[in-house]
């Protein structure tokens, strides 16, 4: 029943939107920056009267839609390599940085109390460790009483940019781990949910579970999240400050359309799982592209506050200027 309803809604919305608001810009894709784009578009509407409609469906869907030119712009958490961009005739640049936290549901363990070393994270998600009181976890958590209960890992059921960025991080710890938008998980007990909200609901419901979600979902639902060992061996709490410290190490250049995955940055105070999310534009739609870049430019100038409030990290000013130069070079500013 409901899938049919979903599809019908999608069809009807697209029909009415195109028919009634032909001048409205349409975007779809990554759900990771969804809450922020929603805030940005409504503030932009209030400031300029221009309507932009972003539907957070998932990175894969965004890429697919923009390749088929169904929308004016797309969001994707997974950057596309230059070769692929050329083939599909697309421009790409980052819009904001977000982060992924490891949330858990263990009786008596509060927010930020659990410390997870790199070895422990690898062991949990590859299934080398199956119980919470295993030495590899408890070693770093002397003060905590971890139960002798099996670990349930909560993962995504759909293809996801969040999963791509998380597996990218896992791959940095353990090169054998395959980077994928939807890998086959080897952990002993796995439960999958659709989108960030599905995974969050599973973590809330399943005792002794752990899962990876976008930071704003942790904030919204008040879920406890672990401190994670970064590249320099320090345990870092997920905070906007530690995300900013990590984001500084991104190496973006216009030469490769800003292709870069920040995962596991340097720096003693950097939170290790930070990731940028990207905007894709079709090369030939010059008029619409200018409207999209005008919106993003507005967001770069006036949207930083909204971003920080929602738990995202605004791009560094130098990167923003690089992006503005990129627009100029492509004549879409």
């Amino acid at each position, binding site marked *: *029943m*409901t*899938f049919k309803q*979903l599809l019908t809604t999608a069809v009807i919305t697209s029909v009415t939107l195109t028919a009634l608001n032909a001048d409205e810009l349409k975007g779809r894709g990554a759900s990771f920056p969804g809450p922020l784009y929603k805030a940005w578009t409504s503030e932009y509407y209030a400031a300029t009267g221009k309507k932009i409609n972003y539907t957070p*469906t*998932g990175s*894969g*869907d965004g890429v*697919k839609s923009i390749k088929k030119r169904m929308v004016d712009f797309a969001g994707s958490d997974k950057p596309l390599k230059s070769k*692929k961009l050329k083939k599909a005739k697309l421009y790409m640049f980052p819009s904001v940085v977000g982060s992924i936290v490891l949330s858990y549901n263990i009786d008596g363990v509060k927010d930020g109390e659990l410390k997870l070393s790199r070895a422990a994270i690898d062991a949990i998600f590859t299934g080398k460790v199956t119980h919470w009181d295993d030495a590899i976890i408890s070693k770093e958590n002397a003060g905590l009483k971890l139960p002798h209960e099996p670990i*349930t890992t909560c993962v995504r*059921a*759909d*293809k996801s940019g969040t999963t791509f960025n998380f597996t990218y991080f896992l791959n940095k710890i353990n090169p054998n781990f*395959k*980077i*994928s*938008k*939807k*890998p*086959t*998980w080897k952990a002993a*007990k*796995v*439960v*999958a*949910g*659709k989108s960030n909200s599905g995974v969050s*609901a*599973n973590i809330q*419901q*399943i*005792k002794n*579970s752990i899962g990876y979600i976008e930071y704003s979902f942790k904030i919204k639902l008040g879920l406890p999240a672990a401190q994670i060992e970064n590249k320099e061996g320090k345990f870092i709490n997920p905070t906007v400050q530690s995300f900013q410290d990590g984001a500084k190490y991104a190496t973006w250049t216009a030469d490769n359309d800003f292709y870069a995955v920040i995962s596991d940055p340097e720096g003693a105070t950097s939170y290790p799982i930070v990731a940028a999310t990207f905007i894709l534009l079709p090369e030939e739609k010059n008029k619409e592209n200018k409207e999209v870049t005008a919106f993003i430019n507005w967001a770069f100038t006036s949207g930083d506050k909204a971003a920080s409030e929602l738990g995202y990290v605004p791009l560094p000013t130098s990167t923003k200027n690089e992006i503005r130069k990129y627009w100029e070079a492509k004549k879409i500013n």
Partner: protein
Amino acid sequence: MGGKLFRNFSFFSATLSFFLLIGIFAILFTYAQEALAEFGFDFLLSETWEADEDDEGGIFGGYIPIIGTLLSTLIAMTIAVPLAMGIAIFLTEVASVNIAKSVSVAIELLAAIPSIIYGMWGLFYFAPIVQSTVGGNGVGLLTAGIVLAIMIIPFMAAITRDAMNTTPHVLKESAYTMGATKFEVIKDVILPYSKGGIIGSIILALGRALGETMAVAFLIGSVMSTVKHVTDPTTSIPVLLANNFAEAEDLEMSSMYYLALILFVVSFAIISTAKFYFLGRKPK
């Protein structure tokens, strides 16, 4: 002339379901071609579902969702059929008129609740109970099956009750006057009389259970893994389709059309067998 137009239009409407049937089969078959050519019937036995990193290909097999669909439906039907029959008998023969009326209202209300509500209720209120009594994660095959059962009970009970209510009073009264007990009246008068309606309700419920998406998506765990224990998380065809449809391309998309085709053929086969086996011989 208007009469002719009316007749033609009504004829068109009536035959539409036939053309839809053919159309669905043809479209699904066409779109599944790529996967059919690549995997053939091995698709039915392969347990892997993994796309390549760039989404251009991969290995896809339907064994796990097919088994998941059949098992969750089996669990649901095993629980739901006796309970729904019990409720229907209770409503028509045991309960007083007032109780029967108020319970009927509640049941009809529940039959109208969208399945996603059952899914959410199951995840937030029922799964923790399953986890603490049977073990496992809470979400898994068993929870999905039970909630599926709860979901189709009102539906089945309401239709069965209606079917039983059509038994003429004269028949029942004459049986009672001859000294028959309630059970004998139910067994020998009501059941034979309402057999068609009851089986119809079971078939409808079966179809609903086979194709249920949202309630199961919340509860089955959506994991591509074979079930070793009844509480293990697994996946079903509708859940896999709903989770991956928006994101898939090329071969994976085709594999999903293949799965949809399998679901369609399986449910068509089960339902029409049930229908013609039980009802076919009834004179019309």
